């Protein structure tokens, strides 16, 4: 009797902590959202949009690396698939509204993700990384050769068009809030997935796959679904990026892009919701600052050094380290 009471007491305090934790996170997210809404007044909107596109890309990637434990080294393929599909459709069919182009791009990336998943999902760890990398190279080849991608030149002058047929996206402010809305939507989707029972299973797979199998979960199916969702969201980021910058290029399909999104996620903190956003902001900002200064040619080595430093010294990433610090000092 007494024992049960203390147990429920304990449960209550634990739930209390959990609730307080949730509330704190909610407040933090709302503050960030408010800042993002106000940001175009101070910061160049195109630059912010670039950050948001890459942040969405990294958030999508993190669903896989951070919550399922699968390292894909081929996510550039999805970014580019989304970008090229949207770019091609919007340039060739002027009757198409922008959101239809973006939906089509996302669908294309999702389908490609399903193909990748079928081939790669049976392998784990580094095998998985290398297979996704090679598959992405195959896709890269298709993009170089296919008639609709413009080969080495890429697609230029993609019209931004009208959202829902009546909101003119040539207006940078309208464009920004559209990108922000899509980003928030994607972020919330990932948050919802991670906190759902499905997300719990994903985490279980990440922590101990054999145990998840022995508990009766069809692990491969869970992983395939996570992979496909991640690919779709990466494609969405690519589509958005094409609309914002009005171009789709081979750069997006190159495996360096796959490396970059890993860096963003790792640097910000894998397995944290906010981490990839912070990482993307940091990397995009760094690249921009460097390209402005005398160190413009040193972007690659500096990114490499950050990679090494992150892996050596703080594997939990910026957000992860802050969380660890808070946890230590709160309890």
């Amino acid at each position, binding site marked *: 009797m007494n024992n049960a009471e203390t147990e429920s007491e304990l449960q209550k305090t634990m739930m209390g902590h959990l609730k307080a934790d949730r509330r704190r996170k909610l407040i933090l997210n709302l503050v960030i959202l408010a800042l993002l809404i106000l940001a175009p007044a101070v910061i160049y909107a195109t630059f912010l949009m670039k950050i948001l596109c890459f942040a969405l890309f990294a958030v999508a990637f993190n669903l896989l690396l951070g919550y399922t434990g699968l390292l894909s080294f081929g996510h550039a393929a999805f970014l580019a698939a989304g970008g090229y599909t949207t770019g091609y459709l919007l340039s060739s069919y002027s009757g198409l509204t922008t959101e239809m182009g973006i939906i089509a791009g996302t669908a294309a990336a999702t389908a490609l993700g399903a193909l990748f998943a079928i*081939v790669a999902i049976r392998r784990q760890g580094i095998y998985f990384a*290398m297979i996704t990398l090679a598959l992405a*190279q195959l896709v890269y080849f298709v993009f170089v050769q296919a008639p609709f991608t413009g080969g080495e030149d890429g697609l230029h002058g993609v019209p931004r068009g009208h959202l829902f047929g009546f909101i003119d996206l040539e207006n940078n402010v309208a464009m920004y809030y559209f990108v922000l809305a899509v980003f928030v939507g994607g972020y919330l989707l990932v948050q919802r997935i991670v906190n759902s029972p499905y997300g719990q299973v994903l985490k279980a797979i990440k922590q101990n796959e054999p145990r998840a199998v022995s508990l009766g979960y069809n692990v491969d199916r869970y992983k395939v679904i996570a992979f496909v969702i991640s690919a779709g969201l990466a494609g969405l980021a690519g589509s958005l990026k094409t609309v914002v910058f009005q171009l789709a290029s081979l750069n997006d399909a190159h495996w360096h892009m796959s490396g970059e999104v890993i860096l963003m996620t790792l640097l910000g903190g894998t397995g944290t919701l906010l981490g990839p956003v912070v990482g993307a902001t940091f990397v995009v900002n760094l690249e921009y600052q460097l390209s402005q200064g005398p160190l413009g040619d040193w972007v*690659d080595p500096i990114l*490499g050094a950050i990679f090494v430093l992150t*892996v050596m010294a703080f594997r939990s990433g910026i957000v992860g380290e802050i969380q660890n610090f808070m946890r230590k000092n709160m309890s």
Partner: protein
Amino acid sequence: MTEILGVPIAVLSGQLLLGIINGSFYALLSLGLAVIFGLLKIINFAHGAMYMLGAMVTVIMFDVMGINYWVALFLAPVVVGCFGMLIEYFLLRRIAGQDHIYSLLLTFGVALMIQGILTNIYGVSGMRYSMPEIFKGGFRLDFMYLPYYRAWIICVALVVCFGTWFMIEKTKLGAYLRAGTEDSQLMQGFGINVPLLVSLTYGFGVMLAAFAGVLAAPVYSVNPVMGSNILIVVFAVVVIGGMGSIAGAIITGLLMGVIEGFTKVFYPEFSSAVIFLVMVIVLLIRPSGLFGKEA
């Protein structure tokens, strides 16, 4: 019979030869990767950079100190191998117990740094390296022309590959290596210096890459990014051969070179991607690769 499938036999054999030469490089490089992966469980993303370093060091040693090809053939791999051992000692060793993914990411960062720094110093346009006099000319066979240097590449690559396979699979040193990575504590208990063994293994794998780089210097364009694209191909080769299989890496390397060469005859644009297609097919049929053990 001068034509096969409508292609002149001279063209076919020419591409076949080029394929075998490319295959020799794939074999040397994937062998190094397989040694490092098979024994240390490290995916060496810096392998392409090491290959590039081998070639660059050869050219630079010649330009600055006038060191000739034959000396470079030994010296460059040793220099690059020592560099690799430093990386192992100062970086890779510190994350030894962690998830394998981290070693992949770490070496990826290292590769970015090396490539980036050299690009800033030397630019991406190729550096010239002239072939040693002795290799000028070639054999005139009735159906094709075989330059001496190409023949040399094939022979020396085969000898090195076989020697490495023999050393790891058949000698006592190889047995120590395999045992040391299987159960390092037990081997430590037997009085064998396992950390040193690990360093040497990584250094040796890197040396193989650098050796391929020296061989490549006279025939390929030497520049700081020469290793970045070949690396991905070599990864595919290792996956096809079966990760960690030494013999598999060698045979698959040569085979893929030949397949690539034939593709150049029939569908040239596709030659750069055919290996990845082969990889997909192999993985669908045999997930552990052609020579890999079922995981």
